[in-house]
């Protein structure tokens, strides 16, 4: 199966600043990919280049199996970080406008608009002006605008920022549902817990360059090197003296152990069995947040 999106050597500069610096990545069809990075990492710039809002200085973008074009973008839904709607327009007219702008005909829109509004609990607001809706309702409306054309690729720039817990869960659920229908989702965020919950893949960006690009589990396993969670019966003081232990932090009921460089967890296990009764021994997988801090912190 082809990738939904391929970026190859993208570069974008603003004066002396290289906002995106030779970025290459692939987003497999049907996947949910998190596009992570601190503020100013180049996420929004990359997404805007994908949406042809402005062109890259160099590099190639392939969208849904073809070079980037306006025709190809008709199959993409994009929700920018800076969300906005026409405040004076009525909800139905607004959806009609954006639907037509995305190439849908009036018959389709007459059928789809009530369904979408119903789906997100806005059916009774169709004739309200946008400015009359609550913030949460406006966010739902924004999502309908983004997905009105049933996109094959959904690109969301910081979709969770500013959402209350109820709407946040609602949006997470919708994104999960879209995976079932085969939609590819690429979303940027700097909120790691969301990425961890719903992503198959993660791309981490810092200063315009890619630091990570893989599925979530291999990333966590790879970064688990040297971290072990241990629980033993009896005295634990001897652990600090073991040559393969760099640091042992006592938690309630267990110890977080950081191994010395190059130390094998199996050697530690053997040493523990020799000296105490081991109740629990497991390699600790770091959270995405920890990996983010480790990698981005090292960059800075």
């Amino acid at each position: 199966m082809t990738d939904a999106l391929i970026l190859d050597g993208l570069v974008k500069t603003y004066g002396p600043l290289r906002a995106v610096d030779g970025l290459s990545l692939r987003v497999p069809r049907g996947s949910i990919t998190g596009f992570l990075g601190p503020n100013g990492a180049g996420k929004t710039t990359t997404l805007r280049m994908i949406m042809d809002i402005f062109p890259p200085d160099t590099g190639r973008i392939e969208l849904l199996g073809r070079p980037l074009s306006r025709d190809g973008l008709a199959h993409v839904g994009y929700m920018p970080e800076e969300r906005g709607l026409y405040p004076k327009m009525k909800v139905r007219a607004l959806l009609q406008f954006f639907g037509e702008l995305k190439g849908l005909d009036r018959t389709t829109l007459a059928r789809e608009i009530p369904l979408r509004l119903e789906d997100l609990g806005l059916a009774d607001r169709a004739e309200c002006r946008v400015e009359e809706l609550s913030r949460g309702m406006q966010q739902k409306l924004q999502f309908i605008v983004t997905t009105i054309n049933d996109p094959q690729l959904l690109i969301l720039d910081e979709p969770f920022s500013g959402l209350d817990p109820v709407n946040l869960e609602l949006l997470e659920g919708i994104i999960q549902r879209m995976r079932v229908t085969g939609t590819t989702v690429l979303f940027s965020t700097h909120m790691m817990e969301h990425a961890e919950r719903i992503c198959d893949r993660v791309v981490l960006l810092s200063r315009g360059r890619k630091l990570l690009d893989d599925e979530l589990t291999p990333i966590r396993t790879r970064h688990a090197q040297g971290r072990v969670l241990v629980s033993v019966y009896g005295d634990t003081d001897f652990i600090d003296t073991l040559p393969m232990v760099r640091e042992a932090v006592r938690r309630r009921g267990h110890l977080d152990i950081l191994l010395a460089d190059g130390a094998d967890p199996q050697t530690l296990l053997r040493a523990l069995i020799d000296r105490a009764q081991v109740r629990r021994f497991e390699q600790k997988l770091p959270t995405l947040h920890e990996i983010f801090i480790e990698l981005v912190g090292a960059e800075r």
Partner: protein
Amino acid sequence: MNKILTIARRDFTETIRTKTFIVGVLLMPLLVIGLIALGGRITQRLESGPRPPQRVALINADDRIGPALAAAVSDYNQSHPGRLLELRVQQGEPQTAMAAAIELVRQRELDALLEISPGLLDGTLPARLHVYTDGLGGMQLRAQLQQVLNHAAMAVRLEQLGIAPELAAQLRRGAHLELIDLRGGEDQPRIAPELRMMVPFFFILLILLGLLGVNQHMLFSIIEEKSSRVIEVILSAASPLQFMAGKILGLTAVGLIAVGIWGGIAIGAAYYHGLASLLDLTNLGWFLLFYLLGFLLYSSIYAAIGSACNTIKETQNLVMPVTMMLVIPMIGWPHFSQYPNGLAATALSFFPPVTPLMMTLRLASRPDLSLVQVAGAALLLAVSVLVVIRLAAKIFRIGILMHGKPATARELLRWMKHR
């Protein structure tokens, strides 16, 4: 093209529903016409109605003119029964009489004081005429007194020279010159040249109001789209050029409606008042073409300016030089309409920012203008429109997503050079 039309349709429908449009385009002309008509009626009624007699004290130091003045006032009162003058000769020592008269004027017992100095008739001493009033309404009284004084002085002089009044009347009879515009045709009613001169002014005023008024909507609309952050959502579905083209197209339609309404009202009024011969509509096609090209030119510039700013206030510095271009033909209108083929008018009509108004002014002043000039100016303007749209699109593409401080003129130039 569908996207351009979708954007144009939204802008058109949303603009014509705004209160600004309804008041500015539909109600304003009716309001202005209503006020002019009402003002005219009120003035006419006030002017035509009878007024209380004007009581004027007279201190006359020249006995020769006294009887003639009394006769002139009498004649005046007979011919102006609603504007009676009442002269009251002040007796006694002049300085005391004058002080007393001034006091009476101050107390509103009298409306004015007329002092006639010796030397008014022979010119050996400067003739002095003082009119004293304590309000702002002395203008008409002064004119009345000037008229009777002239008649009196003339009568005395004629008598001194032994000339019969009938002979003097014959000598005074003027030689009138009537201006006949051959374009009007023999069967057309004669229309004052001053009124005919207003026609070109009306045409350029119409275009000016259309260009400035509707393009203000362009600025408001783009600034609103930037501040409400809806712009990026639109740009994900349409290119910046499509977006700009859609906006220009939508507002061009709004502009045509506005000018159509104003023009229709004006033409209707001209027919209603029997002034249809003033309007030469043979060049209507050219007027429309110049208006459309002018609209495209200026709306592109306004779109670029709007995209580079975040508030209406920020746009003012950039909009002002553009507006000045439109004012040039308005300032020079009296000259250009009399000399539509003069060097200045001809040269300016080939300067694209001024072309729409200047060519309209020239065509309205002289409908048989050289076709080569008209077509040449239109062609040059059309090419300029294409160049300006291209440059404006470059600014628009960069500016529309910029927030923070507004762009300077230098930055705009740099954006134009961007690939």
